[in-house]
């Protein structure tokens, strides 16, 4: 136990909230010295490595590196308090774990309770309760939130500009050697095409499986663009599209898709 003042880092991307938290802390915990302030996760990591504060207040949502990612870098080396605005998933995750958290706008009573707990831990020289497993789960939850949705836009160079094609306007995709041919229609019905570098296989994994179906080794079709499926002899079929002349082959191994149609 040293007589030194406890130190803290505040990482928060919104300057007003950063200053406000520092102000509130100075009232409930006058002994605490805020030695570092960060505007994003990357700065938080740098500042932590430089100052080694006892306590870190980390905003969960920050540009670039998030508060959770910064927390994983800090690990057991400091007591952590997460700060988040209303965010169902994060708050649920925090409430289940043993991690400390504050909800914005920060309530003074709640802050006082958190501070009391931190002071107790510092006094008894208890080690930080941050567990890597918990943080990993949290990071995964946040990642899922932002990445779980299926692909909505396909980037394609059309002339000089890079255009984003809404996937629901795509009629079909065809693999052409290293490239993928994107056949789509505009809202007005004009048919368009574009070539992209992303391989078909990579796109297939990201597309919404309820909207798109692979009908051939090299063809993925938008189910809502299908006008009709015509069965041929010898276990084959052709897909005819709405408002398009192209006829797509269905290979034998994908024929089961249309058994009900």
């Amino acid at each position, binding site marked *: 136990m040293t007589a030194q003042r406890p130190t803290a880092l505040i990482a928060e*991307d*919104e*300057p*007003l*909230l950063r*200053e*406000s938290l520092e*102000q*509130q802390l100075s009232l409930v915990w006058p002994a605490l010295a805020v030695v570092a302030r960060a*505007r*994003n996760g*990357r700065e938080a990591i740098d500042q932590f490595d430089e100052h080694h504060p006892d306590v870190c207040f980390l905003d969960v949502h920050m*540009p*670039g590196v998030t508060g959770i990612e910064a927390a994983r870098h800090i690990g057991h080396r400091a007591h952590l308090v997460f700060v988040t*605005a*209303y*965010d169902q998933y994060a708050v649920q995750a925090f409430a289940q774990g043993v991690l400390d958290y504050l*909800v*914005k*706008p*920060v309530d003074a009573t709640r802050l006082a309770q958190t501070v009391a707990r931190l002071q107790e831990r510092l006094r008894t020289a208890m080690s930080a309760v941050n567990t890597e497993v918990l943080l990993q789960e949290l990071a995964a939850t946040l990642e899922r939130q*932002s*990445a779980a*949705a299926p*692909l*909505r*836009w*396909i*980037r394609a160079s059309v002339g000089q*500009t*890079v*255009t*984003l094609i*809404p996937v629901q306007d795509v009629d079909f995709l065809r693999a052409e050697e290293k490239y993928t041919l994107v056949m789509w229609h*505009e*809202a*007005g*019905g004009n048919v368009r095409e574009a070539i992209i570098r*992303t391989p078909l296989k990579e796109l297939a994994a*990201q597309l919404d499986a309820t909207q798109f179906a692979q009908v051939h080794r090299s063809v993925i079709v938008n189910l809502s663009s299908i006008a009709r499926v015509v069965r041929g002899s010898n276990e084959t079929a052709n897909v005819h599209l709405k408002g398009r002349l192209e006829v797509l082959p269905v290979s034998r191994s994908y024929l089961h898709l249309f058994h009900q149609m």
Partner: protein
Amino acid sequence: MLTHDALAQRIGPPALLGWPRVRVALLASFVFALFLRPNFVLPFYVVLSRAMVVGFAALLAFGLFERWPARLPRWFARWVLQVLAIVLAVPLGAYLAYWLTTGGHPQLGAVSGRLQGYVELTFSGILFASWIVVGALVRQRDAFAREQETAFALERSELERRALDARFRLLQAQVEPHFLFNTLANVQALVEVGAPQAAKVLKSLIAYLRAAVPRLHETVTTLDQELELVRAYLELMHIRMPDRLMFEIRVDATLLKLQCPPMTVLTLVENAVRHGIDPSETGGIIVIELRLESSRCLASVTNTGVGLKMTGRGLGTGLASLRERLQLAFGAEAQLVLSEVVPHGLRAEVSFPARKTQP
């Protein structure tokens, strides 16, 4: 409007030998037999069975040509075909009736009175059946009209449901607790330190909320109102990220009274903040430009934030629902085009027909 034939195909003709039809045929045959009775010396059951055979022959002909051939030339009405079929079916049916009731030896020419009976049965049968057919066709026409009305009503209600859905999603998208609580936290921070800015922020928040909430019930607002909302939103976001967010609004004043579906420009701006500026450590500038081009209104929002990640994941709920709203409001006449900005950033542009608001 669907044509009678097309609708008949869509909902399908009634069952060929459904009970309602058989009942009508039985009843008609019975009446027909009563009508014929005084002219025949034969027992009533023979007359009745002959009438019934003719009746069913007519019914089959009517039903058969109701569904076959599936398509007729435009100039050839189906009811004409059906009447012709009955005119042919009745003599054949009458012959069959004689054949059946005479044990396979109709001998129309040989037995006295038989030919006269056959002719009588045929002609009165044709007359009788024709009236019934006309009655049936009129009734069917009414039924089709009702059916058609129901089909249109269904279609209309489906469209209304989709419009309602879109508005409902708008409502859900609008009440963004993360935005609201973060902004309130800023207001609280300003109030606590007694900053004079507090009143201004609160004013912007109120303007934003007031502008946002009643719009859910309106289907059309003006660009003027839309811009007011956009300004309030951007001012709030500027307070929250003063070092990272810059913005510029370029607008032709003549456009301000034009119609704009609610939240159109705002959705683009929110999207630019959320997916362009907010995730960027250094932030960027948002440029909003409104202009008129060959009687179309063009609204573009360009930001120099992070742009899109490789696959463009994460971006979209707001834009996808905007696309849907535009489609419901303008059909194929509205467009939303996204393109990338070099070296990083995103440009979103909507265009829709320029219309003045009703005075």
